[in-house]
């Protein structure tokens, strides 16, 4: 019974409408570029590398080369 309650509450939290954040974005970038899953143990380091970089460059996270995810900053007009 207790287990069911925990599962129900956790499901409520995890099933809430979440916004795509840096975790999902970095995982997707690694998946798209190298067709592999980003290990949870590398997640924090990967996020820092992928967002604390110069827009327009590439960065290597977990042995996978992805584009810097920092936004352009508006130096080149347009999408």
């Amino acid at each position, binding site marked *: 019974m207790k287990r069911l309650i*925990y599962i129900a*509450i956790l499901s409520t*939290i995890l099933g809430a409408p979440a916004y795509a954040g840096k975790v999902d974005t970095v995982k997707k970038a690694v998946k798209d570029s190298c067709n592999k899953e980003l290990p949870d143990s590398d997640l924090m380091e990967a996020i820092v590398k992928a967002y604390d970089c110069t*827009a327009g460059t590439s960065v290597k996270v977990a042995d996978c080369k992805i584009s810097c995810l920092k936004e352009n900053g*508006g130096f*080149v007009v347009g999408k």
Partner: protein
Amino acid sequence: MKTTTQLALLVLTAILSSPAFAQDKSATAAPPAPTTATASPAGPTVDEKLEKLSERILELEAQNQLNKVRISGVFISRYEHLINLHGLPGADKTREDLSPLSMHYGLDMAFDATKNLKFYSTLGMSKFFNNEGRNESLSAGYYATYQATETGSYGFSGSQVIVDRAYASYEFDDTPLTLAVGRMPTNYGPPANQIDGLPRQGTYPRFSFNSIFDGLAAVYDFSSKLPVDHTLKLRTFYQPFTNIDQADRTKQAVDGQQLPSRTDQYVVMMDYSKQNLSFAERLDLIVMHAWWKEFYDGYSGAQAPLGSPPAGESENGSDNSYYLGFENIGDVGLNMSWSALNYKASIIGSGVDKDSWGHLLNINYKIAALDNLTIGYEHISTQKYFYLDEWTRMNLIPFYYLQSATGNHIYFNKLLTKKIIGTIGYYYLEAGAGDIYQPEESNAQSWYAQIRFDF
């Protein structure tokens, strides 16, 4: 499942008993009440803790969604030693010998007003060390009004902050169109960024414009209709220049006659790139055409009073510029680019027609064996009448815009540590006499050392 559940409880217990939660709990939590879950006699029940955790996650997500500002910036410190011999043809030359230290600071702020509407700005300052109050527009006559706005904070005038960039950009959802209005990033374009070892930083090639312009832009992105690795953008830019009395906004500017209050300049640019070529990582091909009519140059000295012959001149003209660049050729860190600018103008009422070319070659090579030290070379060649809007340069030497000039530039740059780039270089330039705006010939050389911090 049992192991997973126990693990989840262990992690949650650790989180919820953290100091932050404890503090929060003491301020807001209700006294514990028995529930269907197992309750600790001294604290909240586990499902109460989970509910609190849910609220905290929601709080973090909300904070993230409300964070609409992104701040970054650059600080550059530079030393340059310029020696310049200049004078009228056949006359004795004057020797200039300057060796100032200078700095440039730019604070970038981007605001995501909505998903589609963004606002970008840069507050900038440049100055020579322990020098204040310079004004590089003093000797330019009426042209000072253009020069000052196109220079922005790059005039090394002192410690006051000038807005170099302030524009709003709206990106449509259903069509790959972006509209923008304001003070635009029309300087520091390719290949200028490669001298500092950076990716593309400006919208227009530096040999098209290297100045700050105000205007309205529309960018249409055709990339979705092209194969993977290809991008194609059509950029249009409308630049209205303003002539108005410098002291009274109700009056037109005057030079012998009343000047039209607005001179329009139009720009169309095709911006194509391809990634992953067989011999290079990236190709950029940029073609730009700009044109204007009855543009008041206003260059020389004071304007004439109403009814007198004009002191300045007006022109009809156009620019055609081209940029072809390859990056990481042969996967060995070799970049090459060729830029060209063809400026044509007819001076109204004088019969003078100008038609001039300038070329800029840039080659640089990142040497992996030397810890990614980059060695670069630039060569410039220009004809009489050449004109480039080159107002946001960092260098003392007038390398990129003189008429009848030939010059060479060698540079080295290196990422010293994360966010710090060091560059040293040497310029050599010979320029003959040009038109009435460049009566002197000159022979100049300079070497410089620069350190750039990005934050």
